[in-house]
């Protein structure tokens, strides 16, 4: 599932900005299938964890209210060029994905 995330981490003036796009349907569970009229079961990412040098820099807790194929960006201090940022997610069905990126 490494391909589920596109990530970029850039260092500027000692602040690292991480931008990521995750491929995920983000179904709220409130939407109806247009053909069958039945509710589409909820399927959304609940938790995204970002780590740098083994330390958790950000944990995002989400509902189905985050848009499909979610975008997330955040900033942190205390890492250098070449360090690795790891991003991983878990959804309400227990599916997971993760990737790492080197800070540029």
């Amino acid at each position: 599932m490494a391909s589920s995330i596109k990530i970029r981490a850039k260092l500027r003036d000692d602040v690292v900005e991480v931008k990521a796009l995750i491929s995920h349907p983000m179904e709220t569970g409130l939407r109806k299938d247009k053909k069958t009229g039945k509710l589409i079961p909820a399927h959304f990412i609940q938790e995204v964890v970002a780590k740098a040098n083994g330390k958790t820099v950000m944990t995002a807790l989400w509902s189905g209210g985050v848009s499909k194929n979610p975008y997330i960006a955040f900033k942190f201090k205390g890492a250098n060029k070449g360090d690795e940022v790891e991003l991983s997610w878990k959804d309400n069905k227990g599916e997971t994905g993760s990737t790492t990126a080197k800070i540029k």
Partner: protein
Amino acid sequence: MTDTTRRTLLKGSIALGTLSAAGLLSPRLLLADWPGAAFSAKEVEKALQDLVGTAQPTASDKIKIKAPDIAENGAVVPITVESDLEDIESISILASGNATPLVASFQLGEGAIGFVSTRIKMGKTADVVAVVKTADGVYSTSKNVKVTIGGCGG
């Protein structure tokens, strides 16, 4: 001899107690720290009470919400929240007009600074509320976003 048996028994019952408590408290498949009650709350106040412990955050001009004035497509509304408050623990985003207003909560860890950006769904024109929890209080600001086509229906 009797004493060791008693110790073992005690340890056993404590372990059992912890296990069953954990089983009762964390719903199946859900993550232990995912605030289910706050996410399923139907009002902003209820969600905030569950999430940050207060329904009435202090208004602050040290929080900036960057969002469009008019969102043509409610399914994808870009929201950026920036804050220069000190010792930020979390930044949460709520869409007050949604069936369940709490959309996302970002827990900032070591070294993280007050900036998060994401894209959210909005069912209708409403205030987007950004709530920042710091070491000494809970602060918020809001911005009205007009939605032309709602993003929560089928």
